[in-house]
Every structure is written in structure tokens, then in C-alpha cells.
């Protein structure tokens, strides 16, 4: 079947099998390999992308189901050379080691901050609790997302005072 999927602001049209998963569509057809996969049971969350701003596990979505939605992957997080604060937070707080869970974690962090600009530690833990990280023991991921929250709010205050 022929589908058109919007990813990171661009429409992509491809011929796919009906059973084609979004994660494979992103990785194999669009060569956006920043979205990973790590399980067969929708447990690991390394495949998380944003669909209309909400985190979804792209291994649990058919590529065809992404039609009519806006999908955002890790490749769409930075604005050109400017990293998203969540990406910067992961660097600052050593929120990643092997990097395999990182794209999904960052996207969930991004979605959380978009609806809750100042999450508590517990709220961050809850937000990433559908995702696994085998390397970091999570504390620095929590700190990374909160680093981003703090820097975004500092940015907003500054923008406010300038206005």
C-alpha cells in the first residue's frame, strides 16, 4: 500500500506492506536510524517517537497508522545546529552511556516538559517509566530532563523580562 507520513515536518510517500511497523519504516525506509528497537513486546521504549506531541512506541504502531499525524523523531529535536535543551541536558548531566535508550528517553522528556514545564523528580520518573535503560540507573536521566526544565524556565524568564 502507498502511504504518506509526515516526519519531522516533511511528508514522505512510500509503498509499504500493510504489516510494516512505524519503527521499521523510520529506520529502513527513511533511514532515520536514531529511533531504535530493543524488544518484541512493547516493553523497552527505545523506539519512542512523538506523534502529535505524544510519546508512542513506534514498534506498536503500523506505518500506515501514522498517516495524518505529525511524527517527530530524535533527528527532529535539534533546531539546525542548536540542540534542544533536553539534548543539552543529557550531555550536561551524563544522562546517557551507550546511547541506545537515549533518543526515546529524550523524546519522552520533551513531551513531558511541553505539558509540565517544571516536573518534580517523581513526575520525571513516572514519565519515563515505560522505557528501560540498562546503563545509567536512571538518576542522571532524571537530572538531565530537570536540567532542561530549569534552563527552559530561565530562558522564558529572560524572554519575559526583555519583553
Amino acid at each position, binding site marked *: 500500500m502507498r502511504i504518506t507520513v509526515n516526519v519531522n515536518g516533511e511528508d514522505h510517500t512510500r509503498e509499504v506492506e500493510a504489516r510494516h511497523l512505524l519503527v521499521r519504516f523510520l529506520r529502513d525506509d527513511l533511514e532515520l536510524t536514531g529511533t531504535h528497537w530493543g524488544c*518484541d513486546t512493547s516493553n523497552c521504549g527505545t523506539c519512542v517517537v512523538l506523534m502529535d506531541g505524544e510519546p508512542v512506541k513506534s514498534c506498536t504502531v503500523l506505518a500506515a497508522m501514522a498517516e495524518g499525524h505529525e511524527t517527530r523523531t530524535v533527528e527532529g*529535536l535539534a533546531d539546525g545546529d542548536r540542540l534542544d535543551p533536553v539534548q543539552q541536558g543529557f*550531555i550536561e548531566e551524563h544522562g546517557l552511556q551507550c546511547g541506545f535508550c537515549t533518543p526515546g528517553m529524550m523524546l519522552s522528556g520533551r513531551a513531558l516538559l511541553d505539558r509540565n514545564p517544571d516536573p518534580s523528580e517523581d513526575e520525571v520518573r513516572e514519565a519515563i517509566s515505560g522505557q528501560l535503560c540498562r546503563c545509567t*540507573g*536512571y538518576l542522571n*536521566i532524571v537530572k538531565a530532563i530537570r536540567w532542561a526544565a530549569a534552563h527552559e524556565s*530561565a530562558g522564558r524568564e529572560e524572554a519575559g523580562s526583555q519583553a
Partner: protein
Amino acid sequence: MTTVEEPAGPAGPAAEERPIGFGRMKRKEDPRFVRGKGRYVDDVKLPGMLHGAVLRSPFAHARIVSIDTSAAEAHPKVKAVITGETLAGLGLAWMPTLSMDTQAVLATDKVRFQGQEVAFVVAEDHYAARDAIELIDVDYEPLDPVVDARRALDPAAPVIRDDLEGRTDNHIFDWEAGDRAATEEVFSRADVVVEQTMLYPRVHPAPLETCGAVASMDPVDGKLTLWTTTQAPHAHRTLYAMVAGLPEHKIRVISPDIGGGFGNKVGIYPGYVCAVVGSIVTGKPVKWVEDRSENLMSTSFARDYHMNGQIAATRDGRILGVRVKVLADHGAFNSTAQPTKYPAGFFHIFTGSYDIEAAHCEVTGVYTNKAPGGVAYACSFRVTEAVYLIERMVDCLAAELGADPADLRMRNLLQPEQFPYQNKTGWEYDSGDYPACLRKAMDLAGYEELRREQAEKRERGELMGIGLSFFTETVGAGPRKHMDILGLGMADGCELRVHPTGKAVVRLSVQTQGQGHETTFAQIVAEELGIPPEDIDVVHGDTDQTPFGLGTYGSRSTPVSGAAAALVARKVRDKARIIAGAMLEVSPDDLEWTKGRWSVKGDPAMTRTIQEIALAAHGALELPEGVEGHLEATTVYNPPNLTYPFGAYICVVDVDPGTGAVKVRRFIAVDDCGTRINPMIIEGQVHGGLADGVGMALMEFIGFDEDGNCLSGSFMDYLLPTALEVPAWELGHTVTPSPHHPIGAKGIGESATVGSPPAVVNAVLDAIGVRHADMPLTPGRVWQAMRHGQVEAPQ
């Protein structure tokens, strides 16, 4: 790092001191990972690439009567179907394991564990390959399996390895260490002897990236390029040369970014070999990446040690001796990765951190109808099992004596003046101040206050537990005289080249799986040469570009390769001194080194920076007789001894009396890894290991039913901790440099995985007042232990 951008917000990262050498520094590898530009094996895509899938056995033990591949071969997208018979024709049906056993690549005679590799399909795409394995018809004749290791040596037990000539039982090895007679003697005069049987259950490293490979055999020049998930690219290359009879210079193993290893990616798996054969047969590149079930069911598991411990002490709490009997379940093929002379790894460090008079252990290894493996999952070659044994035994002794577990440990710890310390099973511990480390952990935890809180809670019927562990690790294998894998000595090479403009490239034999080598190794060279880490490129994970060495596992990167990096930098520094002497027209003996420059003693204005020297080394300068141009060096580091990191851990838990659910409320970890290179990375390593420990203690378990069906083949059944199960770790450290390591570093990668499980278990048992219960301490098992005072070993 200076190379990362400011965040979008106006408040950029605090201008932080950038170390030229050791210190907290952002990782050089992170900018690519946060952009999704990591390059993992499954990201490799080559023109014309085909896809492979493995057909696996549904039975734990069965004879293969016939395999019919005709329907699969007729699938329009299938390019090749490979069976054991195909491989046998090429002499590749069996491959050597890292423990000198053999393992079936694809089964020919029997299948010996559920999930064993039976056939391999190569097809145009991933889906077609998966579809086609379903079309293969295998006729099996089921046999009785051996599932429980304790039955493996029964005379009536079916013989699993009848492929081995003359084999009439499932016995692999017997091994002992220590002094049996001396141990019997101390036990005979002990006031108190405590005995405890315990199982360190089978668990799995489960890195989030599964194992896989892309094999590309160039039919014209006969060169095989293999992108593969390996922690030991050089050892793999040599093994492929040995297994497949390919000339070693025609094999290039590339281990690109690796999504976690933890020991899971040390061995060679049949799927890798099949991808290679698939590429040879089809003349096209072949990708094979296993799914999660395949990873959990067929690749290297860890632990599975049935242990019986006895500890002897005086009535006032002086530990006299320890003896242990172990039954080690190695699965269907003995493919544990460990130094050849150590079939039970370094288990004989079970004397732990205590000053005892005598010790003895006996280990028997057996085959069972379960997946092969054994040493994996950040265990430092069985130190995990050893630490668990002794730290549980000390708590059992404390319970028997009515002693406080912290007091009992403090009373028996080795004292700083006893180092270097010869333990009772033959290890020489290099350095340590154990009492200071334990005291620090107790202070950080507020130990005495916690005990008061616990007493109050008990009055109210609340179950709070405090658990300790004090561990001694032994890592950095190892001296080549004693340690080799398949005859390959465990020494590692390193090459350093300083370019004319003073930038440098250092090439390592070890391979990162997230440990941050691109940063720490640059820091080691920076510390020695004074070139900023940003100016040093770290090359690793490609056998065509790096010197030989045995790779990264058993916390050996910093102890072995880190030493090599420091020494190769010192060689370069020595050469720079001669060149600086020529530049300044003085004798090299008149020069002194301060970081980054050679200067004339007493005349600091007469100086040349390492960058100036590098340019001169490549320029027209007349060099002294016998000195070659350029500024580079190579080395191979053969460690004189292992290193001995240590630590004191305290875990605080609350147990729900109604459900048995355990909440880890606090975890305090004080580690001593000797000289600290990048504290940020060290802390990250500890955090990850602590989460592993909580996982093993409370959740992780690879179980089997009586037919040998694996019950933990997915992340729905094999539970890893999430952010909700682990606390905000509280870390501290002490620093006792290793006296024999060039920079005093001891390694940190596995300390926390080794040290944390007993702390968690001790805490839970302290909460519920039960002497012993085997991991995993799931709510159901804790609840049973509360009701019955014990709980059966998990199956």
C-alpha cells in the same frame, strides 16, 4: 566539551574548568548520540544487503530426525537456506567455545536447549526471512531433558553431550582452591559454624541492543568485513580465522557503537557465523540481528551457581575460615568466557575483604539442557557470585551471633597495613583502606540513626531493613603468564601518534559499550602529554585500525588498556624530550617536564611545548643520531597483577507486610577505584551497576519449566528495573591508588553490579527477619519467606 552548542535557552552551560587530563569533563561521544547519529550494527545498510533469520529449536532436548527446507527454498524472496548439513560440508557445523569446548553452529544431531540454532534463512528482506523460517519442517524426536543442575550428575541422567567422544555423563570440570586441611583445622576449633545453601539464579545481561552482525565477503579480493556487536573485536577476528579457516589479514571486524554489552557481547554466537556463511554463499552482504526473545533465550546468560557456604568464627565474632561447595550450571555447551586456567573464573576471591585464617572451595561444573554461557553480566569473572556468597555468609553469622552486621564486618576487615595482602586462595590484593571506606558509607547513610529508626518502626509493625555489603573486586585480567583466552594472552596494545600540528590519535584494542572510552582515554593521554582531550581522537572497535588486544569485559579497559595508553604517552614524552633537547641545543638530561612542555631546568623561559616539538619532529630539524622523525609510539601492556577495587554499600528498604513488595528507599555506595580519571563517568558506571544489582536482587530471573522451556523469553517475563524501582543513588568515594598501575587506576565498570545484590538482599532479609531467601525477592517470594521463614530456590 567545547564542541557542543549552547542550549536554546539563554542560560548556557556554566563555564566550567576544562581539565587537561583527569577531571569531570563532558563526553566527547555524546553530541552524536543525542542527535540520533550513533551508528549501531543494525544501522549499517549496504548496497544489495540481504537479511538473515535463525530457526530455533522448540525443544530443550531432542534428536533431529529430518529437516525439510524445500518450502522455504521455494519462497520467492529467499536466497539461501543453510542447515547444519550445509555447514558440515564446509567443516563449520561446530565451532570452538571460549572455554575450549565445542558448540554447534547449526544443530546436526540433536538440539540441546530450547532456542538452539537449527537453520538459517537468507532473504531479500527481514520479513521474508522471518516468514521463510516458518516454512522449514523439522522432525524432532524429543528426549528427556536435564533441567535441574542438581540432577545432572545422577547416573540415570540423559547424556547431553554425546557428540563428545567417550562422554558418559554431564560432568564438565572439578576445580578447587585454598587449603582444605588448614580449613578443616580452623573449623574444628571454631566456637560457631554457620552453614547456608543459596542459589545465585540464572540472570541475563540483556543489553537494550540485541546481538547482531552484518557480514560482507568481497568475492573478488576475498576480504570479509564484519560489523558486529562485540566487546572483543580482535579476539573475534582471530577466532573467525581459526573457525572458518579464513586468513586473518583478510578479516576485518568492526564493532561500531554498541548498545550496551555487560558481558553479553563477549562470545561468538552462531548467528554471526551464519551471517558470514550467508554472505559467502550468496556473494552479498548479509545482516542478521536477533530479536529480544532470541537474545534472552539463547545468548550468554550469567550466574546459575548453586552454593553451599560454611563460615567458622569465634564466639566474639572473629571470622576464622570459610569453605564453599559450588555446583555450576554451564548449560548445554561450556562457552563461558574466562581465562583458560580458571574454569570457575575468579570465584576463589570468596574470602572477600576479611582477615581470615583459612579457606577452601570446590567447584563442579555440569552440562544441562539450557542455553550456554555462564560468565557474563558485569561479573568480573564470577566475583559477583563470590561476593554474594561471603556477604550473605557474614550476615548469616551476624544473625547467629546476634551481632550488628556493620560491627561484625568492621571487626574482621583487612587493615591498611596488611597490603599488599596475600589472601588464602592465592590472590595478592594490591592496596586498600577498608575500614575508612566502610566508616564513610556508614556516615553517609547515618547508620546509627537508621538503626534507631528501624527499631521504632518495628515497634509499630513496619518492616524496614538495612543491608550492608563490603566487596573486594579483582579486575584487569591479566598477567599473560597466568591468563589467556584460547591461548591468547590477556595483554593489550596501544598506539599513539601526534600529528605535526600537535593534535593526536590514540588507537586502542578495547571497545566501549557506553563506558565513555572516547573521553577517558583522551584524558589519560592528555594527563601524560598535556595535549587537551579535545585534540585527541580515540580510535577503537576496528581491527584494521587498532592494535591487537583482548577487549573490554571484566572491568579490564582502564586497568589494562588505560595503563597501555599512559605508557605509550610516556614513550612519546620521552622521545619529545630528545627532540626538545635538539631544538633548545641542550642535553635532554637538562630538561624537566611540566604538563605539556619540556623546559631547561632552572631556566623556564627556555621551553618547548609538545605542539612545537611535534612540528619540529616532522620538520627539517636535525635530529640526534639514532632518533627517527615523527612523534609516535606503540606499546603492549602486560599487567603485573590484577587490580582490586573495593567498596562499602548500604541499602535501606521498606517491605510491605501485606504484599511483600520491596521498596528500595535509599542506596549509599562508597567506591574506591584508585585514581579517578573522570568522576562523572565513574558515577555513571556506579549508578548503572547499582540498578543492575537491584534488578537481580528483586526482579531478574531466567526460569525454566520441567521440560526445559524457558519461561523468561521476553521483557514481559524477564523484568528489568525501571526508573520507578530504583532510588536516587547516594555516592561517595575514597581513593587508594593501585601501586602497580602506571596511573594508579583500578577500574570501576563492574564494582556496583558485583557489590550491590547482597546489600539489597541483606536489607530485605533484615526487614523481614529471615536468615536466607534466594533471589529474586519478588513480592510473592518475600511474602512466602515472611510466612514460612524460608522460600524454595526459584526454578
